[in-house]
């Protein structure tokens, strides 16, 4: 079956010795032995010895003194009614940062927000979340936040600041407010009030990653400057030109939810949508596509024009490469066949290319079907031409006062340098900002704003779809809500009220939304209901009408392919956006879904196959090499990662890194490429053709790519007993595959992954069932030939005795649904107090995530398909880790949980060595607490300075900790617990209510975070539950079933809808 070609990366394919060695071991050998200087902090060791001496004497004295340390129990003075200490309260709110949007529930403990959950009531996201939304709670406790209002670097009071600013505003002839997309209708009212008071004000809106072209194209075509409502769930054929709609483009959570609805297959003969991605580098969305068509970035215009020619006639795009032409011809056929049920989108920032896309959709009859305007998206509203105009105004000295309102044009605007230079001519520069950034650094007045979890607000992400934002904690610092700051300067708000912005907000709602509805009689009941639900649906506006395009003009203005030998494409990373989230350690440590790199932007270079076992990177580069890339005259030294599936002659680099003012976490990590963008027709183009790339110039010290960490089995013995790299063998070099008896096995013969195309599902399922020895589909355990039958825990006996009653927890992961977005990984870190370890530690394989998403490639080596496999503790009922623990720190519960008692663990790491899934993590250093010995502390932030204490060791960051989960100390193993704290809580709820436990009582953090419902957790004994239903799918298999560990996690085969005949 097609399984015979899965690989994780070129190191594996090239049989690199170091990689093979590491893959065979649980713990990578560090350079501790060879180069002790690098690891042990030599200069501190004598002092450490004295400290240790002092500590032991002190400890002995304290212990001998036997004085009980006095602990205080401090109650409330007046306990708020809604708080019961020890019980979490949930508030509906909305995460909105720029155009990013997600309706959420905020879990608070004793008044502290500690976790974000999706809001199931939202018709847009339906409970899904993104990694960014999950991580946003950590930003609340960011040590880098502004804490007080400031003027010229001095802390001042709000009264002084307001007085000062008002005087300056009154004396200004020209006031400019620069902001990112504002989704809040009331905030727009605020700006109107501000403009009413200061009519000389203009508001300039732009987006960190521009979508101006699509807005402009729609204005020209429909007379409506919006992004339409894309209905991925209604489309049978989806063609995306470089739009990473599952990861970063416009509204990824919403799109992922809809997209996946059509991609879940349960039986032979089922149907699923077709997804074709036309792109230059492997994006997260591209990795999920059925077919990828590779074009160079400068060819994108031609590709669109070529497809337009095929669909609407009239030719075009003749300069496109032949392979892509062939592929697009086949795609055009599919599109025509799916008239009215297809969807073509593009992330191009060329207006005329977007007009061609509009025309393609129009010819295909998709408007009204898969594309609508009645609930158009407002998530991008910016226009960087306005910023251009602002820059020229500023350079001409026409602007007296500049207010930077939550944006950071000094970094993420494509001509940031010019912006910063021009701003020097502005007399008064005011930053209404949450934390210090490149733009606020040049401002003399800082008006610090609240975090969104401290704020009131409303959000209209799609027309007529409202949601509310409410504070879940009282402000931590002397900050003030940004909108309130503007209102105060405009004298448009009550000065006596306790919560003036709330009053303002309510007044606006009373006169607009409340007046427009009829279900509620009084405003207070309406407001309370809206606030409780967090989302208020219903309203929709009239769709756009008319269709007006000038095809000939458009065709003449599409971008032309370049003759340049090398091109570079810049993309927004799923984790940190264009730098907006780079102060967040959870997101910085989150690996990129595709390249699996963290802490920095790695240059993705294409890999070519030499036809004889070897894969080579461009210019002979290898993973972790430093290379010098010159883009438009700017030289940058970047580390390299080899990337499959790149268009030939194309390299890719992420935006958002190389910030200079992003606190300890984000400053100086990676390189800034915002000034490498080109500009066409006033719009930023996210590629550059003026590129040269050097060969290897050095080696990165801390290559923080987790791609090769914790890989499962790559070696095997062949028939001659020779140990070989099985994956290489599967590429057709060696006759291989019969009579394998190897102990280590390989991915090819070991059941780590199963996948199939929809067409071949029948055959592949038969193979799977034959292999598993399963007679009936619902048999979980078949007559699979186990490599061993040894067990200390006879499964059948235990099943009858223990697991047959009460609960028997299990999990089901649908690989077809997993898009690799990493929301679950971040949610798991938040829920389980998983530490951030920093770049150096990641490079030493010490990342602590309990849930990782393994990425595997299969198929064509130069343009492969991808499977994402969430891998966490499998809670084996015949667990190999348990019986090697000398102190019984890990053992089994009667509910099928593989338990880990941290306080029993003595750190032998035998368990991790014996885990076939490599999911156990060891606390090599003191990752969460400030150890008194510096040698035991990780250096999480590369520029932490003097007080470089570990992440989470300060009292502010510690507020995010989940009080129900132990913070682990140095020297113990930890791993996924199936969110046992949630299990226990759910059981208690059911007991208190005197009823049986149901699915809703216990849902793990990864499950609730998932935007595509790929993860299902539940009680296997609950025959009516969701899990039991999912466990009946014939597509299910158990990872590494042959090692007979009786795991509790079941995977469902990855199915795609690839058309093998399309070759591009």
């Amino acid at each position, binding site marked *: 079956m097609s399984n015979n070609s899965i690989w994780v990366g070129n190191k594996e394919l090239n049989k690199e010795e170091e990689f093979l060695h590491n893959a065979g071991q649980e713990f990578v050998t560090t350079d501790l032995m060879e180069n002790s200087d690098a690891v042990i902090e030599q200069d501190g060791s004598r002092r450490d010895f004295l400290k240790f001496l002092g500590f032991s004497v002190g400890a002995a004295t304290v212990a001998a003194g*036997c004085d009980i340390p006095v602990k*205080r129990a401090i109650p409330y003075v007046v306990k708020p009614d809604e708080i019961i200490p020890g*019980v979490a309260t949930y508030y509906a709110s909305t995460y909105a940062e720029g155009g990013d949007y997600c309706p959420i529930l905020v879990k608070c403990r004793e008044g502290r927000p500690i976790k974000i959950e999706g809001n199931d009531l939202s018709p847009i996201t339906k409970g899904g979340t993104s990694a960014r939304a999950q991580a946003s709670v950590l930003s609340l406790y960011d040590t880098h936040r502004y804490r007080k209002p400031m003027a010229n670097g001095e802390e001042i009071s709000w009264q002084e600041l307001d007085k000062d600013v008002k005087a300056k505003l009154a004396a200004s002839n020209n006031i400019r407010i620069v902001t990112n997309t504002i989704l809040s209708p009331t905030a727009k009212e605020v700006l109107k009030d501000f403009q009413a008071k200061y009519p000389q004000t203009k508001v300039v809106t732009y987006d960190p990653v521009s979508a101006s072209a699509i807005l402009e194209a729609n204005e020209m075509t429909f007379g409506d400057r919006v992004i339409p409502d894309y209905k991925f769930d209604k489309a049978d054929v989806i063609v995306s030109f470089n739009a990473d709609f599952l990861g970063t483009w416009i509204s990824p959570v919403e799109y992922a939810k809809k997209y996946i609805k059509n991609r879940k297959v349960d039986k032979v003969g089922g149907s699923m949508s077709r997804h074709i991605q036309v792109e230059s580098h492997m994006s997260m969305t591209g990795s999920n596509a059925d077919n990828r068509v590779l074009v160079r970035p400068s060819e994108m215009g031609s590709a669109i024009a070529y497809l337009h020619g095929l669909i609407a006639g009239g030719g075009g795009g003749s300069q496109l490469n032949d392979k892509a032409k062939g592929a697009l011809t086949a795609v055009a056929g599919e599109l025509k066949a799916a008239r009215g049920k297809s969807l073509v989108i593009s992330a191009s920032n060329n207006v005329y290319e977007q007009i061609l896309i509009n025309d393609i959709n129009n010819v295909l009859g998709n408007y009204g079907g898969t594309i609508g305007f009645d609930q158009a998206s407002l998530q991008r509203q910016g226009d960087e031409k306005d910023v251009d105009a602002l820059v020229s105004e500023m350079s001409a000295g026409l602007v007296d006062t500049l207010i930077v309102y939550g944006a950071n044009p000094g970094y993420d605007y494509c001509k940031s340098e010019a912006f910063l230079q021009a701003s020097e001519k502005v007399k008064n520069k005011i930053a209404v900002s949450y934390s210090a950034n490149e733009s606020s650094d040049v401002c003399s007045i800082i008006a610090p704003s609240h975090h969104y979890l401290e704020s009131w607000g409303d959000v209209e992400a799609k027309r007529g779809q409202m949601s509310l934002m409410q504070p879940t904690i009282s402000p931590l610092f002397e900050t003030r809500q940004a909108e309130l700051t503007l209102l105060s300067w405009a004298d448009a708000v009550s000065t006596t009220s306790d919560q003036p912005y709330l009053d303002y907000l309510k007044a606006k709602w009373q006169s607009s939304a409340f007046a427009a509805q009829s279900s509620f009689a009084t405003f207070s009941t309406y407001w309370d209901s809206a606030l409780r639900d967090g989302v208020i649906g219903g309203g929709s506006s009239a769709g756009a009408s008319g269709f007006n395009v000038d095809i000939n003009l458009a065709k003449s203005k599409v971008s032309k392919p370049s003759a340049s030998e090398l091109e570079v494409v810049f993309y927004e990373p799923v984790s940190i956006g264009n730098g907006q989230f780079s102060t967040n350690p959870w997101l910085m440590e989150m690996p990129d879904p595709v390249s699996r790199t963290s802490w920095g932007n790695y240059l993705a270079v294409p890999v070519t196959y030499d036809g004889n076992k070897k894969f080579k990177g461009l210019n002979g580069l290898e993973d972790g090499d430093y290379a010098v890339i010159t883009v438009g005259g700017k030289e940058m030294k970047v580390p390299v990662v080899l990337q499959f599936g790149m268009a030939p002659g194309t390299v890719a680099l992420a935006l958002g890194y190389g910030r200079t003012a992003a606190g300890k976490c984000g400053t100086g990590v990676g390189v800034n490429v915002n000034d490498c963008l080109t500009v066409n027709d006033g719009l930023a183009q996210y590629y550059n053709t003026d590129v040269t790339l050097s060969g290897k110039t050095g080696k990165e010290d801390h290559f923080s790519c987790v791609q090769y960490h914790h890989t499962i089995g790559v070696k095997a013995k062949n028939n001659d007993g020779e140990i070989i790299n099985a994956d290489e063998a599967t590429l057709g070099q060696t006759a291989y595959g019969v009579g394998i008896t190897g102990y280590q096995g390989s991915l090819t013969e070991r059941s780590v992954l199963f996948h199939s195309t929809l067409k071949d599902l029948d055959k592949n399922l038969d193979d799977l069932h034959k292999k598993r020895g399963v007679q009936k589909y619902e048999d979980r355990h078949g007559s699979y030939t186990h490599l061993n039958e040894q067990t200390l825990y006879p499964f059948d006996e235990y099943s009858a005795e223990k697991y047959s009653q009460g609960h028997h927890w299990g999990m089901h992961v649908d690989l077809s649904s997993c898009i690799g977005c990493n929301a679950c990984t971040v949610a798991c870190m938040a829920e389980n107090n998983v530490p951030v370890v920093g770049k150096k530690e990641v490079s030493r394989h010490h990342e602590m995530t309990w849930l990782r998403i393994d990425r595997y490639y299969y198929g064509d080596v130069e343009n492969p398909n991808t499977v994402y496999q969430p891998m966490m503790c499998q809670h084996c009922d015949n667990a190999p880790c348990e019986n090697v623990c000398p102190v019984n720190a890990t053992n089994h519960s*009667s509910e099928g949980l593989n338990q880990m008692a941290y306080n029993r663990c003595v750190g032998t790491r035998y368990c991790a060595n014996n885990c076939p899934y490599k999911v156990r993590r060891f606390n090599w250093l003191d990752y969460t607490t400030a150890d008194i010995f510096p040698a035991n502390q990780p250096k999480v932030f590369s520029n932490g300075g003097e007080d470089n204490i570990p992440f989470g060791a300060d009292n502010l960051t510690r507020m995010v900790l989940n009080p129900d989960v132990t913070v682990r100390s140095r020297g113990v193993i930890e791993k996924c617990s199936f969110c046992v704290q949630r299990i226990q809580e759910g059981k208690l709820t059911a007991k208190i209510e005197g*009823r*049986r436990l149901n699915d809703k009582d216990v849902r793990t953090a990864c499950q609730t975070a998932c935007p595509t419902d790929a993860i299902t957790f539940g009680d296997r004994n609950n025959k009516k539950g969701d899990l039991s239903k999912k466990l009946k799918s014939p597509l299910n298999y158990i990872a590494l079933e042959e090692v007979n560990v009786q795991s509790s996690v079941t995977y469902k085969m990855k199915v795609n809808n690839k058309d093998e005949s399309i070759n591009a």
Partner: protein
Amino acid sequence: MIKYSFKSLFYIALIAFLPTFISAQPSVESGKALFTANCAQCHAKSMKKDATGPALAGVEERWADYPQEDLYNWIKNSQKMIFAVKHPRAIELWNQYNNVIMNAAEHLTDENIESILLYVDAQANAVPTTKDPSGDDAGAGGGGKVPSWLYWILFLALGVLSLILARVISSLNQIAAKKEGIDYERKTLLQTLTGKGVVSFVLFAAVLFGGYTTVNNAVNLGRQEGYAPEQPIKFSHKTHAGIQQIDCQYCHDGARRSKHSVIPAANTCMNCHSAINVGSEYGTGEITKIFASVGWDPSNNKYIEGYEDLSRDEIKDIYTKWIGDNYKKENDISADDKLTDAGVEEVDRQWNHLVESLTNDQKSKIYGPIEWVRIHNLPDHVYFNHAQHVTIGEVECQQCHGAVEEMDLVAQHSPLSMGWCINCHRQTEVKFADNEYYESYAKYHEELASGSKKAVTVEDIGGLECQKCHY
């Protein structure tokens, strides 16, 4: 053991002899019960001190000018007497006690009131008894414990005996040696004591004892059984949970629904103490601390506006006035007179004590939460949930916390060690039948029905597994 006055003994005897009359006939005993249930919230039990309500000693004499039924009606419904009847004595009292309403008690019969008055009389005339702590100890010692001096005598006697025996052996040896004509030198006492045998025995015993003590103490490190720290307020569970019979969960309202039982917020105290502002035991000494921590002005019965921003001196003025006024009342000093020197000293003492209790190194303000000393300290890696035990397991609070209702100062009753938890989980039977949740344990239900299993313990449903408490 002379704890009770002869009078009360007499009454107890009376009750024993006349059991049938108790309920019908007015008696001191039924009066006591009625007083505790209806009056003790506001009137001091000694009958000689003013609390929220006046001291009741001599109440009948004070009402002697009016018909007896006036007093009875007053007790039954004071508001009616003030506003409907406009009784002069009633109005006088109303004004004297700052218009604090006395709860109506219409359910009391005349016999009941007679009983209460009998009890008031008895209490007022009772001979004050003082506790003799040494006597208490001796009493306890006599009960069954062997006093330690006995051990010492035994120890010494055995020592002397062994010396004598050693001497005897030595003498016998000498005689034997003489008989055989061998020159034998007798060992001196010192030689015997420093001999090989004795020294090695002593060393052996020392090592054994040392090891035993070390291991024992190491195991007990951090365990605090019996821990009874002084609290910032001399809050007595005996008074509240014992005498006043307030339910534990009235204040510890988290116990039934949260992992924490919750130390009540000061506003919970104020539910009662806005009316009861002088304690029966310490007068103004302790309750004023609650007022000062929340900003309640007991002199005017209201919360002080802007209390958080008041200076220490302003706060001092408010509460020293209250303490002083009460001192005057207690010592029969007219409100207009100046305090005596003793009074000033007492007020100062109470104020200083208040400041000391409500502030510490980290908390300089008087306003704010009362920082109690935590008694039950579980390590951080232990998860314990009160709701599971109180609501589902229906475990009585006392099972783990001891007879708190008898404690003036709360002490940790149980070791809170893992062995102690586990032991209980082994023995405790799950209330299987009443809760639908447990229906998922079908096999156990079958076994219970067939009789092959008598009961399901917590252990049976996984109560000994690590991750029930450690995660």
